[in-house]
């Protein structure tokens, strides 16, 4: 089937390409106006029907998944790209309608300036930020412009999932909506122009960020690390300012690429939360993806036709275009496949819709979650697993055994207040190694951190939390014989 064959190519052309349509094709919906674009494979829409379709999809997505409650504070994560700016314009559109069909939440905007990690000059960063600020002030929502350098001042609480509000069920959603309509509250948006502009990112933090990204060997790991840090920063800003939901602008095409790419990266276990509509891994802050039903084509056409402003900001660098990183390769694979088989992206999307997150377990202790991505740790498996086999082959293929690390392990101390493992005085000045972080990470985060040459360049909140957890687990091991198991307690 997959052969590079002349015949096959010819056959494919006959099968896949629809006959060349004449000009002045009519819109399939209203059948009156001239169509201006083709969505999906063969649906031609005129301008006004397309606008209606686009707007309706957004509201239907929010209405179908009833997770956003009236008067809830929602943070919109805008990267400047067309999808997130389209999302911003949809929110604006939805909030401006007459009640009761109005959208009913209180939005804020956040933009993460990643120029430090991407090697942009401060002039370019300033230029992009100014352009974005103009867009944000026009919307009238409060906005936060945060530079990535601020990861170096994050607290360790970011890595600890919090318990969510257990009261949010479907029944209570309906009640909340009815109550809201009864009281006829007006959404006060845009009065306070809280433009939190943290343009004062200290140069030493920029240097630390630069050091971190230069010590990461592969572009795959760099992109992964960037994504993780960005998530943490958004989460922290949401928590600090009282936002309980974050809206991300991932489009259908992007999510299809992400789905396949994440599987290649080893994140298969977390696919449901990474690509689903709502992602509740952080507990109190839920990430939602309302744009997941829109293909890139629809978003670009809408932005173009209805003048949605967006800013193009360069991202991480690369040497070779297609094979530079796994994410890049997956994207080019899916895009190329999509051009010949137009149902690729929608098939992947439909498959992702069928994935559901299992109910969260009762034990919310942080040790059972990965340190970086806060998904369940999938590396605590027994010996008869594929994972264990990879560990064995890794050990066997090492050139010489690493005995030096064992010696150093004995001479370490934990942070103050956590209790000391070794009796007597402890002098802690050993730097953190990958070996220490290994047990705290899920499979794919392990691969990412493995590519970090100098683990100490990681931001302090990660290293501190890692040490704390590791000492705790060591302590637990030491006193394990005195601990009562949960099984014993049940009697």
């Amino acid at each position, binding site marked *: 089937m997959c052969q590079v064959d002349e015949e096959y190519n010819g056959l494919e052309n006959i099968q896949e390409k629809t006959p*060349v*349509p004449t*000009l002045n*094709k009519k819109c399939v919906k209203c059948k009156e106006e001239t*169509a*201006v*674009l*083709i969505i999906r494979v063969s649906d*031609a829409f005129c301008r006004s029907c397309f606008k209606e379709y686009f707007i309706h999809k957004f509201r239907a997505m929010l209405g179908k998944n009833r997770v956003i409650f009236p008067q809830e504070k929602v943070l919109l994560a805008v990267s400047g790209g*067309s999808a997130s700016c389209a999302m911003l314009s949809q929110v604006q559109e939805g909030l401006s309608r007459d009640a009761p069909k109005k959208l009913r939440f209180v939005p804020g905007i956040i933009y993460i300036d990643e120029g430090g990690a*991407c*090697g942009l000059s401060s002039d*370019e960063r300033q230029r992009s930020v100014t352009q974005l600020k103009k867009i944000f002030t026009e919307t009238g929502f409060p906005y936060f412009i945060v530079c990535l350098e601020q990861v170096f001042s994050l607290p360790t609480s970011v890595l600890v999932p919090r318990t969510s509000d257990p009261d949010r069920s479907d029944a209570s959603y309906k009640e909340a909506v009815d109550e809201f309509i009864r009281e006829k509250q007006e959404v006060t948006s845009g009065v306070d122009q809280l433009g939190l502009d943290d343009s004062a990112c200290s140069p030493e933090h920029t240097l630390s960020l630069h050091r971190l990204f230069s010590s990461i060997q592969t572009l795959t790991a760099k992109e992964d690390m960037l994504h993780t840090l960005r998530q943490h920063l958004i989460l922290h800003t949401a928590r600090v300012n009282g936002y309980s939901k974050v809206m991300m602008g991932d489009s259908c*095409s*992007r999510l299809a*690429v992400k789905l396949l790419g994440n599987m290649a990266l080893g994140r298969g276990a977390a696919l449901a939360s990474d690509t689903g509509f709502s992602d509740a891994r952080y507990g109190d802050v839920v990430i939602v993806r309302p744009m997941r039903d829109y293909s*890139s*084509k629809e*978003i*670009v*056409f809408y932005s*173009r*036709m209805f003048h949605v402003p967006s800013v*193009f*900001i*360069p*991202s*991480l*660098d*690369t*040497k070779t*275009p*297609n094979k*530079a990183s796994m*994410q*890049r390769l997956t*994207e*080019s694979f899916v*895009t*190329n496949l*999509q*051009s010949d088989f137009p149902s690729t992206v929608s098939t992947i999307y439909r498959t992702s819709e069928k994935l559901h997150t299992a109910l969260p377990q009762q034990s919310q202790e942080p040790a059972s979650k990965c340190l970086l991505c806060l998904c369940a740790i999938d590396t605590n498996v027994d010996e008869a697993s594929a994972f264990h086999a990879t560990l064995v082959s890794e050990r066997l293929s090492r050139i010489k055994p690493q005995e030096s690390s064992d010696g150093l392990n004995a001479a370490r101390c934990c942070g103050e207040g956590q209790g000391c493992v070794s009796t007597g005085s402890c002098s802690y000045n050993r730097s953190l190694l990958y070996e220490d972080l290994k047990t705290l990470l899920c499979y794919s985060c392990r691969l990412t951190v493995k590519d970090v040459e100098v683990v100490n360049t990681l931001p302090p909140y990660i290293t501190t939390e890692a040490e704390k957890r590791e000492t705790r687990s060591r302590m637990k091991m030491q006193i394990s014989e005195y601990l009562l198991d949960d099984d014993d307690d049940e009697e």
Partner: protein
Amino acid sequence: MAAPLALHLEFGGGAELLFDGVKNHHVTLPGQSDPWDMKQLLAWIRGNMLKERPELFIQGDTVRPGILVLINDADWELMGELEYQLQDQDNVVFISTLHGDKCLTQELKGAVGERSPDPRGRQ
């Protein structure tokens, strides 16, 4: 012998990086006996406007997958894609939807030597 065609080309979504960062271009295609179609336009762009990395914009006969083309604000699939015959004062827009194209800046900068985008039009 057909008259020379004046066209307005626009590049967006990152595709402008391949053209020195300039989004809007007014070009005049030389007159020829057969009318110009999109296929010939792409070949002309590749030969005259694209200075480096043509494979990031054009793949074979057509544009690279992921780059959308609008002709007079309508989807080019409705116009016949490559077979569409260009008319005078047509507006053709190329918008890139690929994430990866954002990587182009650094690459091109490395190739060109840290030159910032020229704000003046290029003709």
